């Protein structure tokens, strides 16, 4: 390692903003709990991205600032505002959408991602028990899976690793990893560095990544 602490990259908000840029206009998107919920605040209304919440809403625009209604929440329990054309449905319908390939993209948080795109994001062995929610269904069912997470743990350990040590959410499911340091694609050839955060070099990203990275001859800086 170059030093004990990784360089300072993007804030949580900027990770969410960069992850939002991965979304295609007109797509149907599910956001995981935690950092991914911030993504709803960074999409362009003109892009007509429709958010699905696994508790049974298609078409919310973001976290609501108005009066709390206990029956109008997202999967994280937060109040949401609806967009025109929104719909409600039960959990069976919701997971028909998710497992059935009807969701264009999911953005989830991660604890670890492996070289072949395995995801671990639901179980911290030191805590035990766990909470899985819809993560396993989203990981196998969303057409494109984007992981938004910190590049390393609080202790400075890489989260992008050869093989996940934490229990898996699903195998070979991740398409893109957006972190405070980089955007990395999971490709058949391996993990490929696509962009670096402003002020971060490709070498620094590689030094804080726990598995080999393919680094193209020219890696652009993110435009935020």
């Amino acid at each position: 390692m170059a030093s004990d602490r990784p360089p300072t990259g993007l804030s949580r908000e900027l990770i969410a903003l960069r992850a939002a840029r991965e979304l295609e206009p007109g797509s149907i998107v599910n956001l995981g709990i935690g950092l991914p919920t911030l993504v709803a605040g960074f999409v362009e209304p003109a892009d007509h991205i429709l958010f699905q919440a696994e508790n049974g809403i298609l078409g919310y625009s973001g976290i609501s600032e108005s009066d709390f209604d206990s029956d109008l929440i997202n999967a994280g329990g937060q109040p949401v505002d609806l967009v025109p054309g929104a719909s409600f449905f039960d959990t069976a319908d919701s997971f028909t959408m998710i497992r059935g390939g009807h969701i264009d993209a999911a953005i989830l948080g991660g604890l670890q991602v492996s070289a072949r795109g395995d995801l671990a994001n639901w179980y911290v062995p030191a805590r035990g028990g766990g909470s899985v929610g819809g993560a396993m269904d989203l990981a196998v069912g969303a057409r494109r899976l984007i992981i938004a997470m910190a590049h390393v743990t609080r202790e400075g350990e890489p989260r992008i690793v050869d093989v996940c040590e934490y229990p898996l959410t699903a195998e070979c499911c991740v398409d893109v990893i957006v972190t405070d340091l980089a955007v990395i694609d999971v490709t058949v050839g391996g993990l490929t560095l696509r962009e670096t955060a402003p002020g971060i070099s490709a070498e620094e990203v590689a030094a804080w990544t726990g598995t080999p990275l393919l680094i193209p001859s020219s890696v652009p800086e993110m435009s935020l």
Partner: protein
Amino acid sequence: MTVEICDTPEAAVGDIANGATILVGGFVSAGTPSNLILALKRTGQTGLTAVANNIGLGDLLDELCENRQLARVIATFAIRASGTRSSRFEAQYRAGEAELELVPQGTLIERLRAGGAGLGGVLTRTGLGTMMADGKETIEIDGERWLLERPLRGDAALIRAWRGDRQGNLQYRLAGLNFNPVMATAADVVIAEVEEIVEAGEILPEQIATPGIYVDRLVQCEPVPVRWDG
């Protein structure tokens, strides 16, 4: 098809047996039958297995742990990752006093659907290659692998809707549907709390999300304010 209109939530849940499996509808604060849960706390049955999306996330299911009424929980959210605020259930689980079966959300709803629909099980990709597949059968069909998940039913279901009519037909509001309509199909006795009981015909047929055929008991209650603030 007769629906019993109960005067109080205690009367609606009082004959649930010790050791029963209860399905509890709702998702965090939405569509959660909090009056029925609190009534069950007062009627005091023990050794219960609760099947619910979540416990200890601002829901009142965790209240049943105060007097150790839950022996086992089958849920998708049970132990918070951060550990900053643990629930009573979490403490009892860690002390080995209550069991937990964690189930992916999409698998939980389909297991309940199978239980209610007379199906023998669910084949899903969800959980393959993970701890969720431990001890379970996988089946190969046309070259693709699937995990076999078994049907799930309850002795009783506690659900919440917005309005119910005297034939047991239920109408939900907003995102209050979630687990409720499927749980209504998957238990021997289905008990619904509603904000208002109306005459048959007042809920239009196309607004009915749970037909009365599934519902055994109705009780009218003011909703309990519940909020999860993370």
